[in-house]
């Protein structure tokens, strides 16, 4: 019995052309028994950053609250919103603080960061449960269906996808991956962040 697989669940984030997408399933279980089909794992951090938390259910909630607290403190002290890169490091150091008694979560960060010229640049990152960051340029995955997500994303993803095409790509990747994972699924939610709006959709998926 692995703690990381006790509640199940998966998260993925992808980069597109001037946009990013992040998606997760909605299952919460006790090993094989499904408890809820509406357990959120992806949360807004600022207007331009989302974080996805796959792993132990209790730590999903605890870390979400902890990140909200730390981001609020940052915003008050700095008198500005946190940037995605900075937030990724905040996630990393929060997890590394518990190096020898970790939170059983592997977070995924997706956001649009400001460039010096005033534009927006897509940003994604993922860390392991003790905060080692992976700044990928294409996509990052996490959770019990991670190997399946890797296989699909590697096959479906391509550079410079427009928001609607990115939505289709991340949705197909997630849906087909969780359908082959007993611990993930039971519905899904997708967020696509663009420079002028955030598209959030709940997907209809297999409920078995």
């Amino acid at each position, binding site marked *: 019995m692995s703690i990381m697989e006790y509640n199940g669940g998966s998260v993925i984030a992808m980069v597109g052309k001037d946009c990013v997408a992040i998606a997760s399933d909605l299952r919460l279980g006790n090993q094989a028994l499904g408890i809820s089909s509406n357990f959120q794992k992806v949360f807004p951090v600022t207007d331009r950053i989302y974080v996805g938390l796959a792993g132990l259910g209790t730590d999903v909630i605890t870390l979400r609250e902890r990140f909200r607290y730390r981001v609020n403190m940052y915003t008050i002290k700095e008198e500005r919103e946190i940037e995605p890169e900075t937030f990724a490091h905040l996630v990393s150091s929060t997890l590394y603080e518990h190096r020898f008694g970790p939170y059983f979560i592997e977070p995924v960060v997706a956001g649009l960061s400001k460039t010096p010229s005033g534009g927006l640049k897509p940003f994604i990152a993922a860390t392991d449960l003790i905060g080692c960051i992976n700044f990928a340029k294409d996509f990052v995955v996490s959770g019990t269906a991670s*190997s*399946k997500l*890797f*296989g*699909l994303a*590697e*096959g*479906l993803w391509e550079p410079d996808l427009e928001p609607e095409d990115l939505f289709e790509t991340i949705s*197909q990747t997630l*849906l*087909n*991956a969780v*359908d*082959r994972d007993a611990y993930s699924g039971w519905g899904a939610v997708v967020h696509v962040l663009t420079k002028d709006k955030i598209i959030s959709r709940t997907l209809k*998926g297999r409920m078995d």
Partner: protein
Amino acid sequence: MLMPDIAMAPHTLPTQHQFNPYTENGGTILAIAGADFSVIAGDTRQSEGYNIQTRYAPKVFRLTDRAVLAVNGFAADGNMFVKKVKQRLEWYRHAHGKDMPLRAIARLIQTMLYARRFFPYYVYNILGGIEEDGTGAVYSFDPVGSYEREACRAAGAAQSLVQPFLDNQIYFKNQTAPPDSAHPTHLPLPTVLSIVIDSFTSATERHIEVGDGLEMYIVLARGRNLAGLEGITGMQELTTTQDGERVFVVRRELKKD
């Protein structure tokens, strides 16, 4: 004189050595059935842990002009198993003066695997080829002989990466067909070959045990023309008889890192 022995007892406890007759040699295999053809593919890397033993160890074998077997798992068992299947097929040829039909080979493999139920061949088998009715077929097996006929199957180290991709691209899972049209039940040969190549390049990218080379065997039904194979470079024909099914092999390089 008894005392020293007792005092030393904790230090001289006999150490137990256990011989493990199995290893796992990595790699991935995959097969897809078309309406009148079948594609059976496998990478050629053979590894043990982090060591690459060889960059070219075939996992896919031509059994007859209409049957190709892919074997993945413990390589020594796999090679031995293929050898024994080939021997049984030769005996059949001598006894009956013809090649064994595909569905019969599938049942033979099940019997041979189950015969070793309590000391199994540590291998996953995928059998591809052409049935007697001329349709493309894929049979997949577990190590002790459970089997079923399917349209496509991936097995081995990167099964978890490839199978859901195949669900999406071959079975069109989670895709809705445009209004008043349906998804095709069988895909054309060029499409299938592209999906196979994409599957292996993806698996090579993300799995350390997959890579080096790719071997794709293509079995065409009796009388089928070569349509769909025009653009394929470096194709080699392995057919041994006239006017029957035809077998081809296509080799491609995969990343070696």
